[in-house]
């Protein structure tokens, strides 16, 4: 799949001719040496300054200094160009300090030292900036160096356009070729991932459900109770054959519109079981995984509520309809357990009815019914948004780690 992405291959040498790069290296090196000279100069200033500070600090120790006594250290009074004569330094605590620009001021030794210290600070800051400069230049030089080396080696640069949802292309590609085995493997690995995340998320969720109100906990009950039944039914459905499982595939995406955390949880658990028990049914697991991924996506923008759980459960029951299960029975169960609004129930019933009439319907009708279904969900959604805030937060973690795949399947179906 990757091979089909558009890309360009250019040898590095054509982008950066070797001799040009070498010239650049030379230039940068020159700049570096210049800066380093400057740095040396500044360092010389700093050394001078510290020497001066030492001298100034020492001078007032004595009332006067015999300059000739320091003859060996070459401190004597110059007289003209050729001669020196011995002298004495008196007033050892009086300094005439050049501030710059021809301004002098009388200072004591202590004050002079302060001035000198300030100057030192200035010099230090200059040295720092220069060092940073040199560092940058060196980085540049090393970059050029490596470029030269790479160009000489004949390295090529490969550029590919970044396709934001590359997995869409990938997925549609897969579907087009009907490469089910590969997809199955992929889904398996993905399910493993989800499993782990699920375990992690469940730990958090138990915390979250504590702070949830009662309706949230009811949901958990509902889903777990209905889990076994749906499991059996859907297993049977999967065995039923191609026709029905394709139908199943069609119906499944409906539920992703109104998915919620608990429903997803159940699905994950369910698919785990089915995987371990009947791993020879790739098609079935595929569809489940699709639903899963779709749900992961839809959970981001879809806020969950408790009624959604009921809807989801009912949806599962509509699936079972095709495998000749009693719908009414299912309805009553979910109606009891989730406090669903009647209008929504009606919608679902209508949906399942339509499904009943045209059991082997293709994607068109699935689309329509889904649209109707989404509508009902939307008008219904805002009531209970607060309930499951925490669930959504925990689920968003899992969703965040699998960014692109869920979208793709969903969008693909729309096309």
């Amino acid at each position, binding site marked *: 799949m990757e091979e089909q992405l558009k890309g360009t291959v250019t040898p590095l040498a054509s982008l950066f001719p070797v001799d040009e790069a070498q010239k650049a290296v030379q230039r940068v090196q020159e700049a570096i040496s210049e800066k380093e000279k400057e740095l040396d100069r500044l360092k010389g200033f700093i050394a001078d300054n510290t020497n001066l500070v030492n001298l100034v600090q020492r001078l007032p120790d004595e009332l006067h200094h015999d300059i000739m006594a320091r003859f060996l250290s070459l401190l004597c009074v110059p007289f003209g160009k050729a001669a020196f004569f011995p002298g004495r330094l008196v007033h050892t605590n009086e300094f005439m300090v*050049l*501030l*710059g*620009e*021809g*301004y002098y001021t009388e200072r004591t030794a202590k004050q002079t030292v302060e001035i000198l210290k*300030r100057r030192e600070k200035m010099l230090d800051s200059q040295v720092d900036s220069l060092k940073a400069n040199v560092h940058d230049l060196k980085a540049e030089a090393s970059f050029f160096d490596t470029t030269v080396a790479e160009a000489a080696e004949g390295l090529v640069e490969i550029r590919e356009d970044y396709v934001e949802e590359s997995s869409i292309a990938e997925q549609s590609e897969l579907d087009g070729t009907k490469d089910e085995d590969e997809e199955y493997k992929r889904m398996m690995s993905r399910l493993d991932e989800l499993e782990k995340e699920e375990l992690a998320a469940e730990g958090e969720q138990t915390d979250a459900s504590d702070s949830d109100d009662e309706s949230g906990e009811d949901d958990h009950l509902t889903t777990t109770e209905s889990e076994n039944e749906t499991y059996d039914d859907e297993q049977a459905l999967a065995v039923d054959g191609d026709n029905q499982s394709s139908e199943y595939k069609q119906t499944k995406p409906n539920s992703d519109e109104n998915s919620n955390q608990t429903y997803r949880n159940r699905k994950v658990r369910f698919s785990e079981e089915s995987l371990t028990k009947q791993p020879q049914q790739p098609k079935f697991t595929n569809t489940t995984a699709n639903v899963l991924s779709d749900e992961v996506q839809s959970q981001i923008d879809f806020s969950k509520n408790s009624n959604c759980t009921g809807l989801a459960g009912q949806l599962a029951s509509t699936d079972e309809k095709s495998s000749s299960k009693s719908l009414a029975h299912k309805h009553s169960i979910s109606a009891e357990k989730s406090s669903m609004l009647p209008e929504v129930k009606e919608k679902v019933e209508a949906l399942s009815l339509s499904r009943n009439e045209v059991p082997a319907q293709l994607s068109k009708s699935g689309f329509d019914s889904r649209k109707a279904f989404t509508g009902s969900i939307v008008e219904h959604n805002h009531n209970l948004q607060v309930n499951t805030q925490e669930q959504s937060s925990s689920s968003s973690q899992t969703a965040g780690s699998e960014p692109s795949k869920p979208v793709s399947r969903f969008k693909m179906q729309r096309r």
Partner: protein
Amino acid sequence: MGSSTALKELQRELENKANDLSKLQKDIAKNHQVRKKYTIQLGENELVLKELDLLNEGANVYKLIGPVLVKQDLAEANANVRKRIEYISAELKRFDATLQDLEEKQNSKRDSVLKLQQRIQSLQAGKAKA
């Protein structure tokens, strides 16, 4: 025959332009130097100002004028330095403006020189063919 005279004219023009360009470049380099000097002076003056601000009221301040140190009032010295800083900043601004101006001129000159060169080349090529 006509083409050769045109060629000569063009070459003369090119020479003039190239001279102008080099003159401009010299100007720019000079400007850069002066500007650098001024920035150094500005830094020095700022240092002086800082030190003068740190001095206490009674401190003796001298200014070196020629070979002699002339005693100055601290306030006066302070004012002088401030004025000098102002002047230098203004000067720097002016230099920036002129530098920009000169660089623009340089670019336009360079373009015209390049065009002239191309024209001469094409003329010569035409001549060679003919």
